[in-house]
């Protein structure tokens, strides 16, 4: 039985045993979603949007869908994956199951808790009805698959006029309790008017076993709200991630999603921004530093629908050994979206001959009074710059690293949490195999 059949045939059992007292609305959303998934199946390279990323090798695995063993992990085993230098709310999931003893949630100034509770408690019914699966709906078959099996994930509900002093850290661990596991976390984040939240998200495999994560996150940013979202992707070589993050923004809001991809087997980031008002700012930043046979595919969409909005997109990639990268950045400026400022930049460095980058900027502009630009470069390290640094006594490896640091610096500079910036800087240095005596 292939994975698709297995998933479809497991659906009924999942629905019945779910144990969650979900209302009929959610049931019908899930039912609809599994039907869509059954119709479309997994994407193949024949799909234009999947031309450069093949899921085929992943789908051969006999994934366990509902882990039976519960693996208890202790805080000391996971501590290093948290940014511990700052106080934060934490939401820790272990093999798809929420771990309350490792987490720190709240219902005081806002709700930072789990989706399973939001889906079952009457007090959240209105929010769920208003928001859940409204942007992810009918988007792609993988999101549909996630929707069909929606069970657990993060629920963040920030009321209006709330500036969260503590960032929220979300980590999805897999323990290897099953040989091959499919995880499908589902996150719903609603940020009220004038509110501000910072979120750090990470997926981490603690074993050498195979993990495939098919995650969906919906983020709703209401009027004048600010959301800073950071994705750290530094997983093991047996871990693959399909991440679909959808952001819907109301007027004058600012949403930034920063994606740091340093590891994993196959990583696919679908990141989509939808504008529902004027004077919106959307920021998309990403840096990929890959080696081995790692593959990262950044697929972004900014859909400008209203006038006077702006989007800033900056993706950088450093590809060594046999790694491959994909950048597909689509910007749509609809006819009504006059006075749009949309900027997109994608710069790549290929270190070794075996590495590949497929870059595809896509601009569809239907309005006539806009400023839009895009730039895409693929290059190698500047030999004269290397010689310059070597001639000052900096060994070649360090000189290379310094140049690559400098290359990625403007993306790292976007990080607004200093402790996170330090962490990312260290991760970059580690990935480049150097120990630099300073932080940029």
């Amino acid at each position, binding site marked *: 039985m292939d994975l698709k059949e297995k998933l479809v045939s497991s659906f009924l059992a999942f629905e019945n045993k779910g144990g969650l007292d979900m209302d009929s609305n959610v049931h019908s959303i899930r039912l609809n979603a599994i039907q869509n998934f059954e119709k479309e199946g997994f994407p193949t390279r024949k799909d234009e949007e999947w031309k450069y990323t093949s899921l085929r090798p992943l789908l051969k695995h006999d994934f366990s869908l509902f882990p039976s063993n519960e693996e208890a992990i202790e805080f000391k085993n996971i501590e290093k994956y948290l940014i511990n230098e700052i106080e934060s709310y934490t939401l820790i999931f272990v093999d798809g199951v929420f771990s309350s003893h490792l987490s720190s949630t709240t219902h005081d100034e806002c709700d930072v808790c789990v989706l399973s509770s939001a889906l079952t408690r009457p007090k959240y019914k209105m929010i769920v009805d208003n928001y859940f699966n409204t942007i992810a709906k009918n988007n792609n078959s993988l999101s549909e698959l996630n929707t069909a099996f929606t069970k657990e994930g993060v629920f963040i509900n920030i009321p209006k006029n709330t500036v969260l002093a503590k960032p929220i850290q979300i980590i999805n661990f897999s323990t290897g309790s099953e040989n091959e596991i499919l995880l499908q976390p589902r996150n719903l984040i609603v940020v009220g008017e004038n509110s501000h939240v910072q979120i750090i998200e990470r997926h981490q495999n603690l074993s050498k076993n195979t993990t495939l994560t098919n995650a969906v996150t919906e983020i709703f940013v209401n009027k004048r709200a600010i959301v800073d979202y950071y994705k750290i992707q530094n997983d093991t070589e047996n871990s693959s991630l399909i991440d679909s993050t959808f952001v819907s923004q109301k007027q004058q809001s600012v949403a930034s999603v920063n994606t740091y991809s340093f590891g994993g087997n196959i990583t696919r980031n679908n990141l989509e921004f939808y504008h529902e008002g004027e004077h919106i700012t959307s920021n998309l930043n990403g840096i990929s530093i890959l080696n081995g046979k790692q593959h990262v595919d950044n697929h972004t969409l900014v859909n400008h629908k209203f006038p006077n909005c702006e989007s800033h997109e900056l993706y950088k990639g450093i590809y060594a050994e046999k790694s491959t990268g994909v950048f597909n950045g689509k910007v749509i400026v609809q006819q009504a979206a006059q006075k749009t400022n949309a900027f997109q930049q994608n710069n790549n460095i290929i270190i070794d001959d075996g590495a590949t980058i497929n870059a595809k900027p896509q601009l569809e502009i239907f309005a006539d009074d806009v400023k839009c630009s895009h730039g895409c470069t693929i290059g190698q390290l*500047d*030999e*004269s*710059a290397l*010689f*310059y*640094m*070597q*001639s*000052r*006594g*900096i*060994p*070649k490896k*360090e*000189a290379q690293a*310094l*140049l690559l*640091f*400098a*290359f990625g*610096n*403007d993306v790292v500079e976007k990080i607004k949490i200093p402790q996170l910036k330090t962490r990312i800087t260290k991760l970059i240095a580690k990935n480049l195999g150097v120990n*630099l*005596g*300073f932080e*940029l």
Partner: protein
Amino acid sequence: MLEVKNLHASINNKEILKGINLEIKAGEVHAIMGPNGSGKSTLSAVIAGKEDYEVTAGSIILNGEDLEDLAPEERAHKGVFLSFQYPVEIPGVTVTNFIKTAINESRKAKGLEELPAKDMLKLIREKADLLEIDRKFLSRSLNEGFSGGEKKRNEIFQMAMLEPKLAILDETDSGLDIDALKVVANGVNKLKSKDNAVIVITHYQRLLDYIVPDFVHVLYNGKIVKSGGKELALELEAKGYDWLK
């Protein structure tokens, strides 16, 4: 200090240096002059160890040690410094961070501990003051958006920090107005001592008014065709190079 013996070097199988002989003692300043394409910049790049060039014959000996098999950074650790004609811009790395890295890498190579941050800062300030460099300048990205004068002054600042035994100034005067030229020359003169040596590579006499050489060599078609005292530079200025060809 430096002995260049019968040095032949080529790039892409084209021979540029065709047998250079040069001996430089500690405390001396040597000027190398010559028309465009005579091999001046090649000579400096070959001494500094640029890998694009292939040394086909001869040797470069620094303080008794053959440099042939040494990487550029290893030569730097032995005391070779090349001031670039066109210093490279490195956005995102500040002047301070760059020089810190350079100093500490060099110390590491010599088996020394990293210089404590406090001492480093003190040293940086001391040398910046010596060269009349604004402190703000030190936190700018290396050479990015620097004027021609600022780039050259930054080169001399790095030289001051690294305290090389042999400094090669490759066309340090190009792109400088007379005031900037004086500042840069002044810096070099302050750093000169009886223990180090300087090679000044230039087209023109004017830099040599400020950095006075003990010897002047004329390079033409990959060979030194004439050597003399500082008066040779004046003669070249008056007569050009044609009479030497």
